[in-house]
């Protein structure tokens, strides 16, 4: 086990159940690096996950307090938790199904409220743990096990959605951009508000095999890298481009949700004391 894993993770759950060559472990290691560089301790962070590849492979790997919500509901649970335990950092690690499909309404409203959590959306562009079906982030036209003739729907960018909803920090990165990802995660965690980090990573077993025609990890990583550059390694233009980096940074520009509620309570209670009615009044 590497030093970061030994410091932060739960030994009984490492190695994870992830497939060979999966990007989830690598990204988690980068998250640990960000926490370590920020000087955060295990007890400073609550680790929340959802369902699917990302939920299943990361849940309970964290050595501290963990929750693995039902599919898509991690942010709803985190909203309640943040109210009760406002001083913790929340690392909510979810997949594209959780964030961009079944749980999108919770994502939008957590962003609108400026809930103080950092969402890491690890996106393998489909439902890979159920065998490789398309999701709202699968590029249009690509072949998956539920789009044998090419995905008929247009895809969408969750970064645009959370930005429009009011997220105070939004960034996009990929499993091919180590230093950028660590830098972004640190900035996300420094925001006392809603931070969203979208990280694309390759799935070799399903998306790679069916959409890209290869189970070769390096080739699948290369395909992602090419699409961040807009050019293939042999100089051709790619079919589309992902712009990565910080997309919106309004960190600490407006009050965090649980603080808004606490402040309101204080105002209400101060008024009550003025009027001289106590706790048990009704």
């Amino acid at each position, binding site marked *: 086990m590497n030093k970061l894993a030994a410091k932060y993770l739960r030994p009984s759950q490492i190695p994870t159940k992830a497939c060979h060559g999966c990007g989830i472990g690598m990204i988690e290691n980068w998250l640990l690096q960000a926490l370590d560089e920020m000087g955060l301790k295990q007890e400073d962070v609550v680790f929340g996950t959802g369902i699917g590849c990302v939920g299943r492979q990361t849940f309970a790997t964290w050595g501290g307090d*963990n929750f693995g919500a039902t599919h898509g509901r991690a942010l*709803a649970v985190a909203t309640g938790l943040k109210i009760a335990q406002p001083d913790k950092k929340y690392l909510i690690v979810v997949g594209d199904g959780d964030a961009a499909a079944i749980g999108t309404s919770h994502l939008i409203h957590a962003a609108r409220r400026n809930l103080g959590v950092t969402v890491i959306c690890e996106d393998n562009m489909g439902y890979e743990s159920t065998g490789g079906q398309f999701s709202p982030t699968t590029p249009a036209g690509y072949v998956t096990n539920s789009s044998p003739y090419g995905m008929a729907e247009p895809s969408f960018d969750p970064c645009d959605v959370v930005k429009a909803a009011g997220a105070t920090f939004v960034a996009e990165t990929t499993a091919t951009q180590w230093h950028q990802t660590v830098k972004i995660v640190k900035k996300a965690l420094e925001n006392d508000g809603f931070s969203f980090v979208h990280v694309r990573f390759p799935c070799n077993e399903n998306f790679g095999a069916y959409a890209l025609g290869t189970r070769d990890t390096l080739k699948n990583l290369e395909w992602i890298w090419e699409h961040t550059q807009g050019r293939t390694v042999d100089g051709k233009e790619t079919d589309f481009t992902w712009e990565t980096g910080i997309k919106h940074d309004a960190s600490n520009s407006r009050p965090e949700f649980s603080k808004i*509620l606490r402040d309101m309570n204080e105002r209400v209670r101060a008024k009550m004391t003025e009027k001289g009615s106590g706790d048990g009044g009704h």
Partner: protein
Amino acid sequence: MAVTEIALTERLVAPWAEWAKQYREGRRLLEAGTYALTEGAIAAGCRVFAGYPITPATDIAEYMSKRLPQVGGYYMQAEDELAGMHMCAGASLGGLKAMTATSGPGFTLMHDAYGWAITNEIPLVVVDAMRVGPISGITGAPGQGEFYVARYCSHGGNIETIVLSPNSVQESFWLTIDAFNLAERFRTVVTILTDQVISDMFEDLFLPRDYAELGGIVVPRRHNLTMPFYPLNSDAMDVPPNIVGKGTGVCVSAYTHTEEGYDIEAMEAQWAQTYRLVNKIRHHREEILRYEAVGLEDAEVIAVAYGAASRTVKTGVLEARRRGVKAGFLRLISLWPFADELFGRDARYLVCELNYDGQLVREVMRAAPDKRKVHFMGKSGELHTVAEVAAALEGVARRDRIPELPYIWTEVR
């Protein structure tokens, strides 16, 4: 008509039979069931409410939005009911007592959160103010369609659930405190099945002077800070709830779990978890049983009801007594676990409920010695009248059948 005095034994088996005697100083108000329920929650120490407005539970949300900030609590309006219950589960995991309230259409959306909260042994209270269905039905009419839904509030089986139902404004107050207590003691979700009538109606309400003085009856939140977080193969009650955010290393998830709480795919763990989720409740049924009974001792026909329906049914029983029918009254307050032990007598039963399909009656048929002696009297969207109940009791007692009455269904099969 001559007035006949009838001496009948009345029995209320519920903790608030004592509580009401213990706390006599306070305020007398004319208030709604939703108001009483809200005050019960505040008195029980509820500090988080997250929900989505829906008739006839909306007033609970509104009262909560006013009351919670006054006592240092938090009101959150969720994007939907399933978010609302998950928010409550998160808050309870973080150490705060929490409640949500809804009606049928929202209740069906909560099943996701129900399974999660029950499996992870998170204390919560969920209120379902039932209205007539299916689906949106008539928003301003009472129903009793969630008798089984509240029991089977999650998929996958392997759970027992606790469901309580009040039948007055005053009882809505005490019963809500009781629901919070049971949630804490059993580390589970307790459902309050109230209905449109009990929620919306105004009645006398006594509220104790200072909720801080309720320490003797309110079970406070405690925190389990050490392993095992999920005692396996254990039916123990009063295990303190787990807390996330104190660095204990607890894991909470949707999966079959180990004692630490992380996921495992092993049959032994599955069986051990099920043993706990089922038997922590089954083995302590006597701690949950709550009911009201009138004149059961010599009753030849026993009317069975709960919630709003029980009010006119009880008066119907008294009317039948006046007519010389040896009628008894049984009101279930704890609906689940089902009170099989109350149906040991080989009497005739008349089960009155607010649906045409027959739900409560099926459990009575199962629990009673002779299901052929169990009669069904269903109404949809409105209460039974006293005259209907009295006529039915007379019919069952004298001719073993309910006379034909308009808008009443008697077929179960």
